[in-house]
């Protein structure tokens, strides 16, 4: 039992007692120097080693710890550019500094050699014997892993409860607006926008793993054969259906399939469903659509080869544990996918068609088995299977992650640019992960078809490529590798003082450029761009080939607070040439 320290005479103050206590420290001079020296050696060794590692890797670039000094020019620029009173300008400059220092601190920790070196060594035993995951990846039973946000949906309070919505409203900070946490508003707004054009909306909230397989997380649910819903789900469904929105809830289907077949509906170490579960849902969804929406018959059909294709992979949640690529704790899982091809001798892989009457907006549950970057095979995703079951072409806009917002934003951007992606559509199927109901940003968006207006932002002509140089004004958010379930990421760079190859100022003098920020769980150089840095890039228009190739990759984009009227800004795709 802990004893109280010696209590000297009662009249002494606490500070006097402390001084007496410190004066009584019993340590030899040699030991004191040794302890102090070792302490200083440890705290100094880390930054020195970090700088040395970085200089060895790239001698041309100053070590990352010095990047902090770059935030000051950004603040000065923000002050100059802000409108309003001195206070408004000061607040803008303050927000710029806060953004820069948060990015700095994140990158400093994310890139620290200490973290990269120690993480796999420490995490492996903690996971194996302690059942300890990470902030994003939780360890379940029998080798199963769970994504934290998805689990929170099931264990947390109702996402429509005041307590939860109040918390969401408090999530913003000086430079990031708080999310709109109420899914009802955004879904109903989207429903109304589509209804005005005679288009039906079907929402498909794909259940998270813990809703269908809770027994794989806690023994308390052994023998459970139902669905674990968030307490607010029924209320949401009722509200939407009362307003005329069609809701297709795949959860009962998957629970029933698990019960009747005994087969797993989700991948063990991944966030997503199995190919069989996806196919089951696609089949029932096709039937659901055909019963409720009158579609004109099509003469296009699709085929699936008789033999399934085997794909083996370690899931995204296992990779989030940061155990390293050569980890042996979680084995690759083999699944059988059924790619979809256009019928005919050429066996062309399935492609979305813009003239289709059905538009599927989807997230990674749509992309899995379709997007090669997810490592689970190609041409066998939700859009493909749905197309196969409906026996008709489908248009698709899919963005990994943030399905509550990203796909609507992509659609809204196309509409604003005068490209009416909703033309000829009869139904929009909006698939998102159910976890988005609790953690997504359900921002209200404009879906008006605009006319291409002259823009101050430069974009090269279609199919042409240009070399330009400019100054980085801002970089959109970049995730820390390992903290997200994906391995690749694209960010946006706002370039100003744009000049062509010969140093002549470019029209508009500014551009917004998509660039790789993370490749195979490693941050790229653009991810570390800082405000005020001069860069030279090879750029081309984003709409076209770059969007087709990279459009479904996880992306972070500027919001309206960062670049005014961002939805109408023409975008570029860029690759770095030199610093």
């Amino acid at each position, binding site marked *: *039992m*802990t*004893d*109280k320290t010696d209590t000297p005479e009662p009249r002494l103050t*606490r*500070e006097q*007692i*402390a001084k007496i*206590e*410190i004066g009584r*420290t*019993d*340590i030899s*001079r040699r*030991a*004191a*120097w040794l*302890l*102090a020296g*070792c302490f*200083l050696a*440890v705290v100094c060794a*880390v*930054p020195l080693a970090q700088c040395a590692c970085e200089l060895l890797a790239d001698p041309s670039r100053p070590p990352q710890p010095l990047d902090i000094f770059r935030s000051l020019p950004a603040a000065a620029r923000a002050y100059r550019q802000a409108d309003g009173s001195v206070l408004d300008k000061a*607040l803008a400059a*303050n927000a710029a*500094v806060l953004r820069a*220092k948060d990015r700095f*601190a994140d990158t*400093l920790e994310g890139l*620290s050699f*200490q*973290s990269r070196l120690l*993480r796999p060594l*420490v995490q492996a035993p903690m996971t194996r014997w*302690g059942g300890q995951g*990470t*902030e994003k990846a*939780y360890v379940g*039973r029998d080798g199963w892993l769970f994504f934290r946000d998805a*689990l929170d949906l*099931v*264990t*947390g*309070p*109702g996402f429509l409860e005041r*307590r939860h919505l*109040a918390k969401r409203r408090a999530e913003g*900070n*000086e430079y990031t607006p708080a999310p709109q946490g109420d899914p009802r508003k955004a879904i109903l707004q989207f429903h109304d926008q589509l209804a005005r054009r005679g288009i039906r909306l079907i929402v498909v909230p794909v259940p998270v793993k*813990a*809703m269908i397989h*809770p027994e794989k997380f*806690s023994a*308390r649910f052994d023998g459970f054969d139902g669905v*674990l*819903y968030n*307490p607010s789900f029924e209320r949401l469904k009722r509200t939407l259906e009362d307003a005329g929105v069609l809701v297709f809830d795949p959860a009962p289907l998957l629970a029933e399939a698990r019960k009747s077949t005994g087969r797993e509906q989700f991948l063990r170490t991944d966030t997503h469903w199995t190919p069989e579960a996806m196919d089951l849902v696609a089949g029932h969804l096709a039937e659901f659509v055909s019963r409720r929406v009158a579609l004109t018959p099509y003469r296009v059909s699709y085929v699936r080869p008789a033999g399934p294709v085997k794909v083996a992979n370690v899931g995204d949640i296992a990779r989030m544990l*940061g155990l390293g690529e050569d980890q042996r704790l979680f084995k690759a899982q083999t699944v059988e996918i059924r790619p979809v091809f256009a019928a005919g001798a050429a066996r062309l892989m399935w492609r979305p068609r813009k003239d289709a009457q059905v538009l599927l907006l989807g997230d990674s549950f749509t992309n899995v088995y379709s997007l090669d970057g997810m490592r689970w095979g190609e041409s066998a995703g939700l859009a493909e299977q749905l197309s196969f079951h409906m026996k008709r072409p489908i248009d698709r806009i899919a963005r990994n992650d943030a399905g509550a917002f990203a796909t609507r934003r992509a659609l809204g951007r196309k509409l604003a640019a005068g490209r009416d992606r909703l033309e000829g559509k009869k139904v929009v199927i909006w698939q998102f992960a159910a976890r988005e109901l609790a953690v997504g940003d359900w921002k209200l968006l404009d879906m008006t078809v605009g006319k291409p207006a002259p823009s101050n932002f430069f974009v090269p002509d279609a199919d042409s490529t240009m070399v330009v140089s400019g100054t980085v004004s801002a970089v959109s958010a970049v995730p820390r590798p390992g*903290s997200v379930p994906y391995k690749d990421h694209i960010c946006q760079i706002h370039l100003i003082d744009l000049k062509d190859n010969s140093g002549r100022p470019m029209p508009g003098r500014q551009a917004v450029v998509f660039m790789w920020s993370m490749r195979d769980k490693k941050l790229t150089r653009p991810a570390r761009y800082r405000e005020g840095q001069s860069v030279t890039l090879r750029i081309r228009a984003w709409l076209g080939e770059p969007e087709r190739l990279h459009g479904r990759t996880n992306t972070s984009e500027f919001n309206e607070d960062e670049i005014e009227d961002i939805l109408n800004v023409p975008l570029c795709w860029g690759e770095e040439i030199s610093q």
Partner: protein
Amino acid sequence: MVFSSHLFLFYFLPAALALYYVMPRRGKHLVLTLLSYAFYGWANPLFVTLMFTSTLVDYLCGLVIARQFSTSWSQPVRVLDRDAPRSRTQRIALIVSVCSNLALLGFFKYFNFAAESYDSLVAAVGLEGLRLDTILQITLPLGISFYTFQSMSYTIDVYRGEAGAVRNFIDFACYVSMFPQLVAGPIIRFREIADQFASRDHTAEKFARGAAFVCCGLAKKVLLANTCGKVADMAFKAGSVGFVDAWYGAAAYAFQIYFDFSGYSDMAIGLGLMLGFVFPKNFDSPYVAQSITEFWRRWHISLSTWLRDYLYFPLGGNRKGRARTYVNLAVVMLLGGLWHGAAANFLVWGAIHGALLAVERARGKSSIYHRLPRPVKILLTFIIVCFAWVFFRADNLPHAVAYCRSMIGLGGPAGGAALIAGLIYQPYYLISMAGAAAVTWLCPQTWDFTRRITAPKAACVLALLAAGATVLATQEFNPFIYFLF
């Protein structure tokens, strides 16, 4: 920037120590002030202007109260005679200082709470038309509750004749902003530390003991507080938890807040020692208390003594009869609760402690279970404290009530909330909870542990640093509870 962060430990701290020690003696306070402002500005650069303004006002008020402007600057500042009457100017200066500090605190911390409470009240009595509907997007400046109290105590002490005014602005700014204790205390009174500003020694022994404090504090924070905090977070974020989970979560929070705050205090004391300052003890093994009265003698001592000296005593303390004593205790604890957060649940937390203190005072400062064996008394006190912590941790009052219902067996896990068992009973968390309990009740506190530093103890301290730094490199959950206050 929290002490237990990569940025502080491996970048700010070495740089700060290097700058401090290369600076000649005359410039040490200036460099320490600038470092502290940089440390503070890291949270939000705009807050720096606020702290500077508060510092300047209190500095000038201190000089006015001490009549420094009416005497020669070459003469030493004299402490006012305690019994002499104070002039109108001196009273006004004191009022300006106290009001400016309370206004700062009131606006940034309590404006929205007051506006919301007023709106709820008028709505409840059917006067909807009188609603203010004014909620401002206010960011609470970091550490404002601490530095306003600290700086206010200075002018009050000067006025009372308990401390001399400080003439050197840099010294005063350094006292208010000193980064080791700026954001979470301990709350230091100027009169107790003034002599250290005049002269203090920097010895290897002091530095080594400071390093030992920092290592122990870091280990408490990273190895115990953060892991227990994860369990508490799961339990409190869950929709509705069962009986066992609720108690387990509340105990986890009790450990989290203790190791979080006492670990931070240890690091603050250690950093102070490295810079030559000696700060007093802030925690004295509070969970070995056998009554709530004893708990408050051991928990956050710098706050409880501040409240005693600047609130309880001026209210009359125990000198105005028994009934008034109980009222004073209740008022102090209610305001203590409100100091922690502008919400009804903090008020309830303060009220619970205030009521229990009053009951124990009526019984001669002994608990109602004082006849039971010591371990049982300790356990019962811990259980009461845990129960009260629920109001401290919950998102709001209804959440706290719902959680308490689970703790007395009236609530139950609704749907998926029972799933949290899959995480909170994992071996890693069970071991951490057991470790936290062992350190709480079986290990010596940091002051005792570091009093005699032998070679094995030095090795142990360095091992704690290595373990703390290693886990820190992999840990993403690293909140600091008192940052919110």
